C-alpha cells in the first residue's frame, strides 16, 4: 500500500514479529490513518452534516408553509397555500374560504351542516369534515403541532 514511501513501513498484515518491529507497525498505522482515512472520515462527516442541515432546512420550510389539502372521498381534490386569501368551490356541494391563514367551511348542501359548525383551522393536523359529502379539509405540512389529534 505505502511501500516505496518509506522503507520501514510495512503492511499491517505483516508476519507475527514481536519486539521493535511491532511498535514500528503501529506508528506506520497512524501514518496511514492520517493520510487516507482522515480524508474519508472528513468526507463522511461533511456529507452527514450536509444532509442534516438540508433536512432541517426542509422541515423548517415545511413548518413555515402549512397548506390546505382538500379531499373528496379518498382522492386529493386540491392543495392550496394558506398565505393567499381565496374562496374555493369544492364540487357543487361545499365552499370553503381561506382568510388570514385560516380555513372555514362557508357552504354545505348536506343535511347535518356539522362542517359549518366547525372551528376554523390553521395548524398542522387540524381538519374540518363534511361527512355526507365525503369532503375533508386538512392542514398539512407544518410540524409545530400543539395537539396531535382530537377525540370527539
Amino acid at each position: 500500500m505505502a511501500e516505496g514511501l518509506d522503507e520501514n513501513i510495512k503492511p499491517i498484515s505483516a508476519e507475527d514479529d514481536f519486539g521493535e518491529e511491532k511498535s514500528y507497525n503501529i506508528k506506520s498505522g497512524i501514518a496511514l490513518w492520517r493520510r487516507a482515512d482522515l480524508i474519508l472520515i472528513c468526507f463522511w462527516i461533511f456529507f452527514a452534516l450536509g444532509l442534516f442541515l438540508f433536512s432541517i432546512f426542509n422541515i423548517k420550510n415545511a413548518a413555515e408553509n402549512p397548506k390546505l389539502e382538500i379531499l373528496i372521498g379518498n382522492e386529493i381534490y386540491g392543495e392550496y397555500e394558506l398565505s393567499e386569501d381565496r374562496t374555493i368551490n369544492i364540487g357543487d356541494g361545499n365552499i370553503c374560504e381561506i382568510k388570514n391563514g385560516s380555513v372555514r367551511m362557508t357552504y354545505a348542501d348536506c343535511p347535518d351542516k356539522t362542517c359549518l359548525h366547525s372551528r376554523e383551522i390553521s395548524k398542522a393536523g387540524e381538519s374540518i369534515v363534511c361527512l355526507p359529502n365525503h369532503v375533508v379539509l386538512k392542514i398539512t405540512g407544518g410540524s409545530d403541532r400543539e395537539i396531535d389529534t382530537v377525540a370527539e
Partner: protein
Amino acid sequence: MKSSLFPIVFILYIILLSGCGAEGKEASGTGVYFDTVVDIRICDGDADKLLAECFDICEEMENVFSAQKEGSELYRLNHRNSNSVEVSDNLASCIKAGLYYGEISEGAFDITVLPLRELWDFEAEDPSVPSESEIKEALKKVDYQKVHCEGNTIIFDDSDTQIDLGGIAKGYISAKLKAYLLEQGCNSALINLGGNVSAVGSKTDGSEWNVGIQEPFAERGTVFDTVQIDNRCVVSSGTYERYFTADGKQYHHILDPGTGYPVETKLQQVSVIGTDDVLCDALSTICVLIGEDRALELIENEALDVEVIFIDNNHEEKWLRD
C-alpha cells in the same frame, strides 16, 4: 485499521441523521370508510407501506361492518334467510364482544338497536320524533338476548332481530390496526377513527401523544382539555355528537333500549382512556346510558382498567383515575 474506522463513521452518520430522520420517515393519510373519517399518522418503520396497508384493512373492515352498505357482511346477516348464519372471524368476535358488553351493562348497551336507530334516523335532512306506536313497534325487535354466538355461527331467536355494531366496531377496527402496526414492528403511530383516538407507542422523541378532547356543544375542533397517552386510546361519547331540536326539546342520538327514546342523563360527555380499544368504545356509550353512579360501580365490579372523564350539564369535569 479500516475495518475499525468504518463503524465509527457509520455511527456518526446515523447520529447526525437521526435528529431529523424521525421526521423524514413519517407518513399520514386521511380517508372515509364506514361513514367515518379515518386519519392515520405513522412515524416508525416503512411508513408509506404501513399506511397503505392500514387503509386496505379499513376497506376490508368496511365490507364487514357497515350496516348501511348493501352487500357488506353485516348487511347480509341482517337480511338473512335463515336464523343461523356462519360469519367471518371479525364479525363473530365483534358480535361476541357486543353481547358481552350488553351482559355487563345489564342490557343498557344493546347491539340489536338497529330498528330503533333507523326509525329515529339522526342522519336525515329533517329528523323528527317518531310516534309512540312506531317506537313501541321498533322496541319489540330490540333484544340482544335473542342473539347467540357459537364459534363463528350466529343464531337468532327471532327473524326480526337486526344488529348494529356502531357502538363498538370503531373500537374493534382501531384495535385491529394497532395490532397490525405493532406486529410489523412499528412503535409510533396515531390513529383517529371518527373521533376514537388510538396510540401505538409514543412519539419518536419518546414523549406522549397530546390528545385534545372536544368540548360538548362547542364548535367542532374546540378543545377543553388535553390528555397525554402512549399505547392507550381515548374515546368520547356524548349527547352533543348528534342531536336535533323539536318543540323546544333536544333529542340526542344515544338511545335507551329500555324506553326507545334518547336516554335521560345529566351527562353531556364521557371520555374513556385505556389500553383496550373495544372496551373504551363500548364503555363511553355505556357510561352515558347508565349514568355516573352506576358507571363507577360497573368499573369497580368488573375491575375495568380505565380512566374516565365525566362532563355534566353544568360543564363540570370529574375525573376517575386509577
